[in-house]
């Protein structure tokens, strides 16, 4: 089961869960993913210890996709 989560004031919220073989679940996840991108969030996936990548499209095969806010110099 793959998960799309967003880091927010609750710690994190699960926005969608899907399995690659479930088209309806994937479609809902893609819609939730795009909605978060439209809100200015950035999508990240872990690609091994100490590595992460930004993604612009929902990676259906990924186990966990994390939406984060942009960072800036303080």
């Amino acid at each position, binding site marked *: 089961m793959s998960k799309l989560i967003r880091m927010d004031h609750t710690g994190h919220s699960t926005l969608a869960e899907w399995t690659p073989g479930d088209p309806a679940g994937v479609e809902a996840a893609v819609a939730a993913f795009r909605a978060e991108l439209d809100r200015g969030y950035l999508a990240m996936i872990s690609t091994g210890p100490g590595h992460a990548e930004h*993604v612009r499209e929902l990676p259906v095969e990924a186990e966990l996709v994390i939406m984060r806010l942009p*960072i800036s110099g303080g």
Partner: protein
Amino acid sequence: MATVDVLPETAAVHWRRRVDAGQLRLRGRLWTLTMAAHVVPFAGAAMLLMWMQPLALPVALVLLAHAWIIPELYAQRGANVLRPPRRAGAGTQGAPAPAPAPEPERRSVGLLGDLVGHDARELHARTGLVLEPGRLGAWIVGEKGAVLLHGARRRRAYCYCVKVDPRRPAARDLPSGDRIAHLLLALRSDEPGFATVANLAFAGATWRLRRRLPTEMRPALKAALAASDTRSSTAR
């Protein structure tokens, strides 16, 4: 899957040169030069004064105090990047961030724990900071900044001010684990880009930074030094 190699936030600072090892060394040397330009005139004037008129000792001491305090103030500025943001009750814009509720805090630390290894989890529980080895050196990541220990002899600490963009309303209520996770994910995806986006607050001696860190945070610096040692010995 469309992946992005460069941190998107670097577009907001497009005029900055992308950070690399050479640029880090250069910035470190410039920082040392700037400190010398601050300290040497005060120390020199104190010695000259004493040579000319020993009775001017009080004035010479004031000058020496200036020579001592300026680097310490900069080191304090560097240490501040690792301190957690002040938390008070819910406030208006510009006020300290509100204290997160225990449950969100627990959830955020749980997510952060999933992103790091056992040792880093344990270190975070003790210090509130996360150690992240990188290609440029060993990073210590806090809620509103990160410190990079760079160089084979890891003598220099680069203290960066960087945090979740405070212009986003959603950034205000983030629990501490999420704040660190934001920085950690950005760092892991593009280390030079992360250092480019961040603002350098201090680039000085690690020992000077250590003295200005709260006692409970010092184990993180010690762990980062050990991590740097491992990298250096592995690289040989």
